[in-house]
């Protein structure tokens, strides 16, 4: 346990510079994006009011509707979903890099890591935990970023034009945010459980490649493919299976895949891995 925690802390530390950059990008991009889009919208409102001789925002709202937080966001959507996409892509790449960086470069750290006392599976757990924590960290950042963004929206949009929504409604109706941070606790756990299972499968594929090189690469790709098919498999039996069965089967298969991945990874790390 002690060694596992030390490894997690070390793994977090190894990524912190890129991570800080991702966090900064998220904050800056979303703040600037919202500011810019509200400014653009308000310019349009003023221009339209002048053109049509409307004297108050209330009249404008009556005629053209209000400006919601959602519409403000959607005008400069790339600043929001774009920053999220960059973060997601970076973390997805890091799922691979978190292993390969130990092998490559002048200093092949994997020598040291494999020679640490205790189970080598600690490496697997630590890296998996790191990926999960890094993902959740960005989610947490997004969570604390929403209230100031909302406040900025309320500050910049005149009351007569504003259309209040809660963060939760915004998230629920936004396809990307609803996927990455579903407000329903069961969904949140399910999404990240499936996500972490996927990461475990990819880790296993990476370890196969690291153990058997080219042949391992083929085996790993096959393993990942079969795992993917198994996870989406139950849904394709929708005409025969009831929803509860499909759901149960998917969860059961994901548990099975997770356990299998951990077991295979443990065996590979113990017996087959090569520096």
């Amino acid at each position, binding site marked *: 346990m002690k060694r596992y925690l030390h490894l997690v802390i070390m793994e977090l530390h190894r990524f912190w510079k890129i991570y800080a950059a991702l966090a900064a990008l998220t904050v800056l991009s979303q703040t600037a994006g919202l500011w810019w889009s509200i400014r653009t919208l308000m310019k349009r409102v003023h221009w339209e009011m002048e053109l049509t001789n409307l004297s108050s925002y209330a009249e404008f709202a009556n005629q053209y509707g209000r400006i919601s*937080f959602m519409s403000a966001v959607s005008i400069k959507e790339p600043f929001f979903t774009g920053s999220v996409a960059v973060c997601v892509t970076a973390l997805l790449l890091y799922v691979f890099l978190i292993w390969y960086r130990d092998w490559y470069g002048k200093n092949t750290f994997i020598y040291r890591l494999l020679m640490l006392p205790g189970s080598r599976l600690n490496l697997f757990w630590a890296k998996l935990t790191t990926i999960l924590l890094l993902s*959740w960290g960005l*989610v947490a950042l997004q969570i604390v970023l929403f209230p100031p963004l909302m406040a900025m929206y309320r500050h910049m949009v005149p009351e007569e034009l504003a259309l209040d*929504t809660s963060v939760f409604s915004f998230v629920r109706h936004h396809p990307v945010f609803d996927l990455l941070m579903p407000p329903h606790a069961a969904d*949140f756990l399910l999404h990240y459980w499936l996500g972490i299972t996927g990461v475990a499968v990819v880790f296993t594929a990476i370890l196969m490649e690291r153990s058997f090189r080219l042949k391992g690469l083929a085996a790993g790709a096959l393993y990942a493919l079969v795992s993917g098919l198994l996870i989406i498999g139950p849904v394709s039996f929708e005409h*025969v299976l009831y929803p509860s069965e499909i759901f149960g089967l998917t969860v059961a298969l994901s548990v099975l895949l997770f356990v299998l991945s951990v077991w295979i990874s443990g065996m590979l790390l113990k017996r087959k891995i090569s520096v």
Partner: protein
Amino acid sequence: MKRYVISACFACFVVLAIGLFLGLASAKGLPGFRLETAAGDGKEAEALLLAGWYQNGPYAERVTIGAEGSEYESERSGYERFRAGSISVSAIPELVRLTEAYPGFMRGRTHASTLLDYYHDDEWVIRLQASLTLVIGDRMAGFHNFRIDMLDKKTGRKRSLTAPLPDVLRNRQAVVADIQKIGDKLHTALITFPWPFNGQREDAELRVYQISLQDGEVTGGEPLLLFPGGADDQVIRVGEVREPDMTAPRKYLLLKAYAPDSDDRILLYSYEQGKTHTLTLPAKSPEFSGSLQYYRDDSALVRLLFAADEIRMERYRLPGFEREREILLTPEDLRAETFQNFAWGENRLYILHDANGLPAVSALDLTDGNVIWRGVVRAESSAGELEKLGISHILIRP
């Protein structure tokens, strides 16, 4: 040491932020509504749900409102949404009931189709499936056979048998209209059309076969002209008359036919007597802006003309189509401004209307036309929320 503290802080931040987010989200964020009984027996409210929209800022939130409260689509879990959207869950209440009671028997067959029908009584659940018609070039290969699955409700045992197809169906297209178990015979009503189909169903026939549930022997099947003496060269649409439970035992089969510029015709077939009898009723006039629907149970046919300002209901006794009574209802009778929508229930007509600006529902007894229950939608928090609520239709619970 510093690194350890930072890592611990980071982990705490993550857990707290996400915990707070999920915790706050689980509290009901959108206003609650309830369907309250204003008059009559409160149990009536349990049969239905109101479906509509709540305007939440820029979002129109789909909501259903019942006696126990409201449920928003967006606040349901992914699993619940998946469940509701799954094709393996039927939207037809009687099939939902059957599925819930007999999931094994209903597996993979929870839908309704023109080649599939159900019968359900105290002892048996019976399903008849006709295998698909095959079209090879311009030739009709016809059915292969009938397949019958029976579930003995007492023992839970399932029995299946197949029955050969009558030769006459080899060059006709057919759909299953109804099945009824009478004694140890399964009466199977088919509507058949000549093949190749020329777009005109003037010689559509009704053929009722009796399939022995012992050995699968098929008898009967004399063609009955569906609508004798009318609709020459006219494209007609044939369908079954709505009923509260399409799987329930019935003495009569009721079909309706519409044709342009022609009266509506209702055909009654008596399983016991093997005879048909037709009632002709005026079609919907072009001036009438509302809707015209037929509804039946085992004792009567109801013809409904529904408009925003008037409801006219005529009741005909079966099997003779004697006109029993006519009921006329205006919004004032329900202290409403307009009628908005309606739904059929077990011996009920539910009417969606407004009452002093509030969404309300009234239930009519189909037998005598009396208003026996009345419900209104109330907001659980502030009444002002009702202004953002719109009810579009009534759902009957399975």
